[in-house]
């Protein structure tokens, strides 16, 4: 009867690891991520967070949108799509990238895996098939969504390499950051990537191998502190790493309604991803102009804030009177022992000469108080351990 496939369920979808994540989820705390049930926390967010900083945390990233990009023009297509030079990303390498609309505003960020010659996987937070297909005009390339077909786990933390070795992934210790390799006759792809700013890997399999992968991994990690990690813990780790979250720290340009709410890569502190020297790419003209004229309106800054009150949803002031921006992500960092935040401020104020302050509201026994806390603009990630880059990494 049905021409377009069987009716969709109105129930929230289950990821390929649901049988395992539901077993592990003692709190029964879930949220819907792109329609898939995803754990907020399994036992306690801070314990899970410390697992990924001290041992290994495992995050189910199946709902991440995934596209398979193949064809003779795959490289040329991607090079026109994103702002960075894709010709430098050889097979077996992964690139973090952003792509812009014609006005040079960021549609999304994501990672591009060069699986083999002419074959790529693009992973993004948002869903962009309409944009990606429109951009195929003139290229001999095929773009297919494979979100539901590919299951993936992030395995993050100081013991992650040792666990993967114990799992039998021979030579995994030689995989460099942003490298990818295959095991099990190509059935398992492992990339040294992640959203925690720490030593870590991401494991990718076809959906049917998912449960087996989980079981092998947890068996191998039993003695090395492996734990399932929910979205709350991951969010803490990514803020410490200074990673931006789409729809939190910036709004994808194709969702923007109000004028001036979209951001260029420069405005997001991602100017290092823009290569104006390479061949033409989407948004190049606008970005070249923005750079030449210094016309960026906004600046994304990493802030270390005085005191210990998290600056969630705070206004940022130059001095203590002039409002110049707002915080998009904030937390007390347990590893850095710092009060940290990602904030958007008007471009001229993103420096320490501006004497930035955060207006912080905090609650104690129901009563609200307010403090104006001094902010220091920092360049480096709040958490950036050497093990993140060490090859081979230590066992713990």
């Amino acid at each position, binding site marked *: 009867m049905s021409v377009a496939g069987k009716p969709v369920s109105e129930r929230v979808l289950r990821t390929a690891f649901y049988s395992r994540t539901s077993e592990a989820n003692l709190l029964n705390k879930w949220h819907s991520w792109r329609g898939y049930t995803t754990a907020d926390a399994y036992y306690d967010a801070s314990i899970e967070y410390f697992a990924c900083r001290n041992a290994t945390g495992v995050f189910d990233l199946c709902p991440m949108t995934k596209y398979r990009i193949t064809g003779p023009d795959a490289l040329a297509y991607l090079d026109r799509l994103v702002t960075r030079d894709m010709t430098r990303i050889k097979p077996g390498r992964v690139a973090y990238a952003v792509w812009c609309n014609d006005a040079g505003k960021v549609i999304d960020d994501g990672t591009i895996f060069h699986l083999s010659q002419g074959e790529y996987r693009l992973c993004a937070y948002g*869903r962009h098939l309409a944009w990606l297909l429109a951009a195929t005009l003139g290229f001999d390339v095929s773009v297919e969504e494979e979100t539901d077909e590919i299951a993936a786990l992030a395995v993050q933390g100081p013991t992650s390499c040792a666990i993967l070795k114990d799992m039998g992934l021979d030579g995994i210790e030689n995989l460099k950051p942003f490298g990818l390799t295959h095991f099990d006759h190509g059935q398992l792809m492992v990339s040294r990537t992640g959203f925690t700013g720490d030593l870590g890997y991401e494991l990718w399999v076809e959906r049917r191998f998912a449960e087996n992968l989980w079981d092998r991994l947890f068996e191998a990690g039993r003695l090395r502190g492996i734990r399932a990690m929910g979205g709350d813990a991951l969010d803490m780790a990514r803020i410490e790493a200074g990673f931006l979250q789409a729809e939190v720290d910036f709004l994808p340009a*194709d969702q923007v309604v109000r004028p001036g709410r979209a951001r260029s890569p420069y405005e997001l502190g991602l100017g290092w991803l823009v290569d104006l020297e390479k061949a033409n790419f989407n948004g190049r003209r606008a970005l070249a102009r923005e750079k030449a004229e210094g016309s960026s309106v906004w600046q994304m800054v990493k802030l270390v804030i005085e005191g210990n009150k998290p600056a969630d949803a705070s206004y940022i002031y130059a001095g203590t009177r002039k409002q110049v921006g707002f915080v998009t992500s904030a937390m007390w960092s347990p590893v850095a022992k710092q009060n940290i935040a990602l904030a958007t401020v008007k471009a001229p104020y993103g420096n320490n000469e501006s004497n930035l302050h955060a207006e912080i509201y905090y609650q104690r026994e129901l009563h609200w108080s307010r403090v104006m806390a001094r902010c220091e603009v920092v360049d480096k990630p709040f958490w950036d351990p050497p093990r993140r880059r060490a090859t081979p990494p230590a066992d713990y």
Partner: protein
Amino acid sequence: MNSYDAIVIGAGHNGLTNAAFLAKAGLKVVVLEKNDYIGGAAVSRELHKDWIYSNCSYVCSLLRPEIFQALDLARHGLQVTPYGGSVTFMRNGDYLGSYWDHEVAHREMARHSRHDADAYQRFAAETMRQTRFIRDFLLRTPPDPTSFRYRDIKELLAIGRRVLEMDEEAIYDTLRFWTMSIGDYLDEFFECDVIKASLAGSGIIGTALGPYSPGSAYVLLHHYMGEVDGNIGAWGFARGGMGGVSNAIASALQAFGGEIRKEAEVQQIIVRNGKAAGVALASGEEVSAPIVVSNLDVRRTFLNVMDEKDLDSRFLERVRNFHIRGSSGKLNIALDGLPTFPALPKGSSLMHSDMHFIDSLERIERAYDDWKNKTWSRDPYVDMLIPTLTDPTMAPPGKHFMSCFVQYCPPELDTGEWTDQDRDAFGKTVIDQISEYSPDFKDLILHVEIRTPRELEQEIGLTEGNIFQGELTMDQLMFNRPIPGFAQYRAPVKGLYMCSSSTHPGGGVMAAPGANAAREILADLKRPNTVPENFGDD
């Protein structure tokens, strides 16, 4: 004793709203209604024992929350419950659902086209951009672009500022949007027929435009610019039917000391010394007031209940040229039980949503061709709902009321005037279409009220049965609505005002025209304003 500060002609929701704000300001007001019930097209009627029909308008979104609040309509009994989603049944046995839940909606669209499911995001953002633009002007009097008065210049600048605030691309898009067709607009985002068909309905409902007629994209906006509790674009049911809206406004009016007289049909607006002086009723009675407000559409106001001698001929010519074309009909059905739609999964939430039975823009365009040929559409666009799945007050438990808005339906047939036989054949066309997707539907029918433009005009005075009291095309919007130079609710005769949907911002159960007109009247009387300002989205 037959003397008032103001007379409002017609107890539709705009007339009642206008009167309520005048009464709130302390004026002695009477609303004169020709029927023995109030509400006009926002009405609940028991036309089958124990069944309450929303027999004209049937859903609520546009009613301005500022008015809801200012007239304290909650205390006067109005409750609006949101409902969500829609379903479009397809000829091949499949269907396209649009679900309340964003993710389920995406998944369902992706079942038909993954491209379109992702394209919806940009469509929604661009459409919201246009929606926000117009929402700012709903509770404002349109500026006169030829005037140099301070307030007109100020208001023109406000429009200009809203335009200039947009990004360059958005300005280009806006200029295109206001004149393009809904079909062309949708074609720019989507590739899948049924997805386009399901979204196009909002671009044609209530208008004599087809999906590829220029100007129909704006009509989409007119259906998206409402809200339920700040949820922009959402629609809801007024508990107890759409009469709940009119009854609550009437109750507010009476609480402010205003009067309503039913079965008091106005035959003539009396003009003395170039000023409005009152009205003469069909009964021969005269009611006097220095302010007369007409909630009749602009054609009926100036051509039916006024003496042409009191008006200038160029003005009357413009009134005659005002487009107010009938394009729709309505079936109201009492059901002995809930019909089943076998294409839908058991327990589907889509049963609570709008249902449509036409799955491509081409079919809708063909339906429009029938209208041009002066017949009702053989394969119509039906917007069908079963409010009793949400509202327990409209039918006995387990029984249902079904509302079917039908397009296209011409005001006059190729064979001449509508006859009762034509009307019944029109009704059969609709029932047959629904039956194709619901085999048990016909057997559940207890009573049907069929309304063609003929009934809509005769019973509630909508010229040609046009639900918006005038086409919503660019030439008849903002400062051109209803007549260029007369968009600020004042008629050419001193003391005479217009407050119907023929005026800005147009049709729908919005109450904004009634409120805007009241603000102008109070300004002329140098009375304190009682009409609220726009809440503002930001």
